[in-house]
């Protein structure tokens, strides 16, 4: 997030697109609802009628995957009406002329046809978003989990730059990150193209720095991204994998493709706290300590680095991940893996990561610190891009709308979207008896019109089939989804939604199109022998 969570309630307008915050980020969702209650206006853009849609001044149930067209359309209106921030564009941006050319054809009429949103509603949205500077954009995976995920994000950046809603309090572009430490895992360089602090693995200066620091000659090849690893296994290029704390068999798109890739490896080691679906395929499984059993830090979505404190001992012979990693690294003959505790590792992080350089465990103790925090007397950074961008002028990029990879047809007439729900978190929360008792099974959402056509009652069983797989689930009949649409979570191994999802990827990020898969739905009568 460019801005802080504490600023959410200060936004006069919240432009919430592809984010089901009250389910996926409940405490931020509450702040958004409080903002609405206190007079802020919510623009909620989501094909589903989410809880936030109920609080919205404007709800835009766009056709799935038409975000770029929608945003280009809003920018078209803003420019035509002269609502853009000419000074901000002039002094802080480049590429405006190309952008202007690109959005010219995105007239309200054209965009309305693509998105299914009326011209009036498009106009009202553009007007409301530009009615105040204190108008932030909030998005999550509804934006990124498309083959056009990168285009969607850059389009939102265009929109915010066009009106100068950046570099100030209570505004900005705010991706609400998924997992507890997905921000930190990225910051730490657990990515194939960058070291910690987003220092490129192809930048000679960065390579030189880390080679000097680690006293080791580094590989110059950019690494493989997750889907490329699985494809690499299918192609026989990747022979061994080490998986720590992830369950791609349940969480990655097109599960069957992933499962086969892992089965094909010569060697798979999985390090986890439970015997996950992925761990079941491993040659060796290493038992790890969970968050309550170790020290360390997590970085949240607003870039706040906070302490994780040990409360209890790990069960049996389970050990903290960092200790296991050190032993494996030393076993492989590497030097530089002798740490006495998490704090000593953090010192190396600070020394090698410019945005974390001013942080110490002592400074993080009370409230944590938001990066960038370059020096030990720096207070951290509440919001980014004040006065200037890291690269000087920010680039407005002309982007064309592209259709999703898969469309519904006669054989697969229902559009499936996937997401999280409040009571579970990905896979592991099912191991909590209490949380599992609250929501013990999948309830796929289906519109009453479709339910009637299929002769379905509440909690009936259906078989859902896509071009990639077929699963059985119960349904709930609700107007939250439009006719012709189905929505599922991916929390249940008994109804693994990712056997259905499309592994068509965004070309840049290699993120799968979890939000758009074509499926067919059939009523299942005899449910004997299933554990759904």
């Amino acid at each position, binding site marked *: 997030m460019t801005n802080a969570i504490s600023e959410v309630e200060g936004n006069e307008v919240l432009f919430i697109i592809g984010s089901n915050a009250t389910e996926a980020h409940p405490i931020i969702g509450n702040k958004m609802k*409080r903002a609405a209650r206190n007079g802020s206006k919510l623009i909620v853009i989501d094909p589903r009628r989410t809880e936030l849609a109920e609080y919205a001044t404007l709800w835009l149930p766009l056709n799935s995957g038409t975000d770029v067209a929608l945003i280009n359309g809003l920018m078209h209106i803003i420019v035509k009406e002269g609502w853009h921030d000419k000074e901000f564009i002039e002094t802080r941006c480049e590429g405006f002329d190309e952008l202007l050319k690109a959005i010219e054809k995105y007239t309200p009429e054209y965009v309305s046809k693509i998105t299914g949103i009326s011209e009036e509603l498009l106009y009202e949205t553009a007007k409301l978003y530009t009615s105040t500077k204190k108008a932030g954009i909030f998005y999550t995976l509804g934006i990124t989990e498309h083959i056009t995920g990168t285009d969607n994000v850059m389009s939102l950046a265009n929109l915010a730059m066009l009106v100068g809603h950046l570099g100030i309090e209570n505004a900005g572009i705010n991706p609400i990150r*998924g*997992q*507890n*430490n997905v921000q*930190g*895992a990225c*910051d*730490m*360089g*657990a*990515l*194939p193209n960058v070291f910690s602090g987003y220092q490129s693995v192809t930048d000679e200066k960065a390579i030189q720095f880390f080679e000097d620091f*680690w006293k080791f000659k*580094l590989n110059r*090849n950019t*690494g493989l991204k*997750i*889907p490329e690893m699985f494809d690499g296994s299918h192609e026989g290029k990747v*022979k*061994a*994998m*080490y*998986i*720590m704390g*992830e369950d*791609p068999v349940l969480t*990655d798109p097109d599960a069957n493709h992933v499962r086969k890739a892992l089965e094909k490896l*010569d060697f798979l080691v999985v390090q986890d706290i*439970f015997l996950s679906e992925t761990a079941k395929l491993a040659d*060796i*499984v290493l*038992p790890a300590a*969970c*968050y309550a*059993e170790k020290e*360390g830090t997590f*970085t949240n*979505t607003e870039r706040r680095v906070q302490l*994780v*404190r040990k*409360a*209890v001992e790990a069960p049996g*012979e389970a050990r*903290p991940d960092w200790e296991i990693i050190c032993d494996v*690294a030393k076993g492989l003959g590497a030097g*530089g*893996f002798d740490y006495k505790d998490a704090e000593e590792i953090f010192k190396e*992080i600070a020394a090698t990561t410019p945005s974390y350089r001013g942080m110490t465990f002592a400074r993080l103790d009370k409230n*944590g610190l938001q990066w960038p925090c370059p020096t030990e007397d720096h207070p951290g950074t509440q919001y980014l891009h004040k006065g200037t961008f890291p690269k000087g002028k920010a680039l407005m990029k002309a982007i064309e709308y592209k259709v999703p990879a898969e469309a519904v047809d006669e054989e697969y007439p229902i559009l499936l979207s996937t997401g999280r729900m*409040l009571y579970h978190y990905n896979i*592991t*929360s099912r*191991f*909590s*008896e*209490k*949380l599992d008792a*609250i929501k013990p099974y999948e309830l796929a959402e289906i519109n009453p019109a479709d339910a009637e056509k299929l002769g379905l009652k509440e909690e009936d069983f259906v078989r859902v089939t896509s071009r990639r797989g077929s699963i059985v689930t119960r349904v709930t009949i609700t107007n939250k989804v439009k006719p012709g649409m189905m929505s599922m979570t991916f929390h249940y191994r008994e109804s693994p939604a990712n056997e259905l999802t499309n592994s068509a990827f965004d070309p840049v990020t290699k*993120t799968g199109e979890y939000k758009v898969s074509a499926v067919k739905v059939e009523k299942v009568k005899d449910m004997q022998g299933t554990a759904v």
Partner: protein
Amino acid sequence: MVTFTLNGKVVTAKEGTTILDAAKENGVDIPHLCYDKNLSAFGGCRLCVVEVQGAKALVASCTNTVSEGMVIQTESETVVNVRKDLLDLLLASHPEDCLTCEQAGNCKLQDYAYRYGIKRSSYKGAKKSYDIESLNPVMERDQSKCILCGKCVRVCREVQVTGTIDFINRGFETKIATAYDVPISTENCRLCGQCISVCPTGAIINKQLKGTRPWEVSKVRTTCPFCGVGCNFDLNIKDGKVVGVTPNPDSPVNGTSICVKGRYHIDMINSPERLTKPLAKKNGEFVEISWDEALHTVTEKLKETKEKYGPDAIAGLSSARCTNEENFLFQKMMRVAVGTNSVDHCART
């Protein structure tokens, strides 16, 4: 700033501060049951009344602000007598079961009865009688212990913004209920349990903390392991085991708010399904092995693969659920010990 006299001492506070908050800032604790600084003022319990010179009656310190020259007595004889009467009345319809009450030691009604020496109520008459309700897998309610302070109603409406519950009925029949008095479930409630956090008595409790006395637990503040919001809370530990979660008001992001997952996930930590020994697959079945054997196998297999096919034949997935330190070391291990940049994690999937 305004200057006023508090129990004979001249003190100051910011204009607009309630008498209750101003007293607290100046080291004077005024008893209260329905007041919470995160919620709108209710002024219902009247326990926070104080004597203000010149005022016709006692004033509720939670709803009245300090003003210049005000002379306030927080524990005068009149005030103390009123508080004793109020506690006497509250206890008149309260079960006298402190010995076995789950909330003993963490109950404000008990604290104030102790502070003002009310052993039991002097009134005899009908008592509220409700069955203990097991609302759902995580919450239990005993409305006979409810003192109708309304904090649960306000926190649900104002902080959680769900509005599941409200007062229903009148007089002696007044109670807290959902619309149409149906059970609390995921249909009408988010199960965040913030009503539990604010309840001053044992009227609504967290089932996971049953059987735990507050003086038996130690608390460790940490960061939630689920979503990216980064809430902090206290893990409650008894006999080396995490037994529950309670909010920590010093949490920078969430204050005292916690969601259903943060509050109740802890049986995951203690799950019998946790992995406790390294495993190796032999003839298609997992068997327990020693750490030495496990580490030896892993390093030998990785070395073998590297020698045969080069370092780029090995790929690693780090984890968005693990700490920064572990992610940093994982990528360092892949880059330095294995020698490849093929390290990634689920940010993209």
